[in-house]
């Protein structure tokens, strides 16, 4: 079989993080995607985010479905287990894994087809259940792997490469997630690492369901002039909100955020459950507190009216309960509970027998 060696995604810089690991240690197998595919940039952003957060790779569970996007977990964090599920059903697998072990970082990568066409049902139920996970949609508006059919996230009126028009309403995953229980909702763009990396970092540390809808152009099937998912179109229409400055992510252990006073005033802080916080640059024209759901919806409406694409951290709930809080599951991960504590005694069985006489 022919395959072309691609340059490694990971930065060649020999930087080390708190664990003494280099960015290369967060890399994976060489990508087999098309050169220039937006998904590869998201992979690079994930590597940077995990490296910078010093997350031990084995503490991450990489979850995905089927599609070009869902292949990408092979290209990052080789030290983490991955579960490449069947098409559209990754959320249920993540639900089970998360129920069994609450102590992992669940980092899920899916496509717009995987999430919103075949997988819409499972996606919605994972949201409702407030799984503690980061769910990245690598959204190119089409099915890449099956060569360019529209997905349910494609905008109405957008055209495919052959000139065919999508007549149906596109689902907006951001609004959907805000309505159904996601407590962290953002949109990123694969072409804007500065914005994407902090969003991924914050999303990973967020407790509860974090969704990032990452616009990620497909260079082979949906990057033409009249596509609303092309690099050009997104660059022209993007409107940022609550976007982080580059060193904006402040772990709890850092007490002071070193910035000039006037800049600090322009920052908004969103606290994360472990005491750390994300600071965001506030754009005067779209200034609202990220936990103000009504304001967020107004902002989305404004963008829709003017035909712009909102990006950045759009909504973040102040206090959140996740799946385990709602279910009252034990603090120790279920899979780590010793068997002899789970299996009742023979004496108990004798007692149970007695109840059936």
């Amino acid at each position: 079989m022919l395959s072309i060696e691609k340059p490694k995604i990971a930065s060649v810089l020999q930087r080390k993080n708190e664990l003494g690991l280099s960015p290369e240690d967060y890399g994976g197998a060489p990508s087999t995607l098309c050169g220039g595919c937006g998904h590869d940039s998201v992979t690079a952003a994930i590597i940077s985010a995990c490296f910078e957060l010093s997350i031990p790779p084995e503490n991450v569970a990489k979850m995905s479905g089927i599609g070009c996007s869902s292949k990408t977990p092979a290209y990052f964090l080789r030290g983490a287990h991955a579960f490449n599920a069947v098409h559209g059903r990754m959320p249920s697998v993540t639900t089970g894994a998360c129920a069994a072990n609450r102590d992992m970082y669940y980092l899920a990568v899916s496509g717009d087809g995987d999430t919103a066409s075949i997988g819409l049902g499972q996606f919605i139920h994972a949201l409702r259940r407030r799984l503690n996970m980061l769910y990245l949609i690598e959204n190119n508006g089409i099915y890449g792997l099956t060569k360019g059919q529209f997905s349910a996230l494609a905008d109405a009126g957008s055209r495919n490469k052959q000139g065919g028009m999508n007549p149906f309403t596109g689902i907006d995953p951001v609004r959907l997630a805000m309505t159904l229980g996601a407590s962290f909702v953002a949109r990123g763009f694969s072409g804007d690492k500065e914005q994407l990396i902090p969003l991924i970092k914050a999303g990973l540390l967020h407790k509860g369901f974090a969704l990032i809808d990452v616009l990620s152009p497909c260079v082979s099937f949906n990057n033409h002039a009249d596509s609303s998912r092309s690099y050009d179109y997104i660059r022209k229409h993007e409107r940022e909100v609550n976007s982080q400055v580059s060193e904006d992510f402040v772990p709890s252990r850092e007490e002071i955020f070193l910035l000039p006073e006037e800049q600090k005033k322009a920052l908004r802080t969103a606290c994360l459950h472990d005491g750390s916080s994300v600071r965001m640059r506030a754009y005067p024209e779209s200034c609202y507190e990220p936990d103000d759901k009504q304001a967020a919806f107004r902002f989305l409406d404004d963008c829709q009216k003017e035909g712009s694409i909102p990006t950045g951290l759009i909504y973040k709930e102040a206090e959140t309960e996740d799946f385990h809080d709602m279910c009252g599951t034990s603090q120790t991960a279920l899979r780590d509970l010793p068997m002899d504590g789970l299996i009742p005694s023979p004496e108990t069985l004798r007692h149970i027998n007695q109840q059936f006489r």
Partner: protein
Amino acid sequence: MDLENPRAEPDNFVIRFANVNGSGSASSNALIARCIFRMGHTIGAKNMFPSNIQGFPTWYEIRVSSQGYTARRGGVDLMVAMNGQTILKDAEDLEKGGVLIYDSTRPIAERLRRQDVLWLDLPLTELARRHFPDSRQRTLLQNMICTGVLCRLLRLDETLLRELISGQYRSKSALLPVNIKAFELGCRYAAEHFKCLPFYVTSSGSGERLGEDAPLLMNGNTAMALGALFAGATVCGWYPITPSTSLIDAFSDFCQRYRTDHDSGEKKYAIIQAEDEIAAIGMVLGASWMGARAFTATSGPGISLMCEFLGYGYYAEIPAVIFNIQRCGPSTGMPTRNQQADLLICAYASHGDSKHIMIFPAGPDECFEFARKAFDWAERYQTPVFVMSDLDAGMNDAISPPLKAASFAPDRGKVLGMQELEQLQGPFLRYADPDGDGIPYRTLPGVHQKGSYFTRGSGHDRAGRYTEDGALYQENMRRIAAKFKTAARELPEPLFPLSHESASSVIISYGSGSEAVKEAIDLLKADGIYLNHMRIRAFPFSARVRDFCLTQDRCLVLDLNRDGQMACLLRNEFPELAPLLIPLCLWDGLPVQAEQLVRDIRTLMPGAL
């Protein structure tokens, strides 16, 4: 009129209750069954209910047998005909000389009555109206009046029955006095108006059964839920479907009692009602992959939905336990009727070459044992395991030896832990066969970087890396086939409950179909027809199944489905058996009646007569 029914005698008879569903009759009928059981007799109890919440006809049958038979016999000796709409049809099912009690508040005209049975007029509605002012309670109390009448007619142990009634109202004690009053009313009415029946329950049974070794009366779903509890299962993903729902309900009850920390209220389990069965099996695979013991319970339609994931479990080699409580028919079919009709879909579920382990328990004790061990097998062979039960076995109470186990220590199979991974030389090969039994080693997420691998349903090599190389694909698939050969050697062997030296034919059964076989064989013996009995307990089949069949002239395969699915599997796996196999299919959806089985065997074996 002198009526005689030679088939019914003390401690040997069949009662059938004909009721309207949703009227609360089920619990009082079950009380009668438990009372006879507690008096030391062998009973079988079968609930034949509609797929409806209120207003449809429903039947409950109790078989009392001094020979130890528990299956339905065929025919009815006492009909408790409390459904006005079906009464004349119910009367037709009675044996000649049988007895029928009915609610005579609306009398049945003499000319409409079958003349060769005894009609007992019980003005039930009238009695309830006269004695109980609260109209809302009356329907339920009618059932209790009826229980009183039967207590007297059948000479049941009144003290015991009162005790059982009190037990039933333990948590609703305010309702106890009025129920006892209704019960006494029934006893009194019967004493004053009816003569004792020629068939009844003697006190000569084995006496009160309460000792440690005394048998239980339990349904298979409860036993399987206990199996999951004692296997240490912690994650359950499920979607409601008859007849599997009560298994989850039971598991949930047991978990509340035995898996909840009483101080903190923390739950050492997660039962997740999924959005559908696709999600349910997805959750099970995710949790098992993460290292918890996980299961789902479902029935035919759920299995259909799970197929893609089942193939994933087979190919990516992830443990999963699926309790399939089978029901009747393709599509929605007859949801509250019984069949064993999912053998073929479960054996080879999903596209591509795939195959799955099926376990066939019979009786509550084996339901418990196999449910528990299914988790060991799933982890040992790293593959989905179906525990194949059905509505009859799952929902009907059956007599069983007490549940027990020599050891509860789980077998978690081949898992490399932290230390082993630390010492690992070279890369971890998830899909290799170092022990030559086809079974690879697995690792759990979050343990060690060296154990990480990419779990995928796409073509993979020994390290789990993507491949489209035909030779590597075949190497892996051959190993999986070898793994199933190992499983066939280690899974439960067939049992031979009955054999006779002059028999050269065998009747092969599995699961709930087996219940009627002993009685059928005994009945045929009286006619000079001798049969051996083999009960299959696992698929892929043990070589003993084939070897034994080859010693026989004929193998009758009892299947509760139209197409002879077990016979088909046997032919498929052991083509050399084809000329010997004779399908014997009983598939009307009701639990097998021994006499029907005998008739069918006779037609299939005319030469033996």
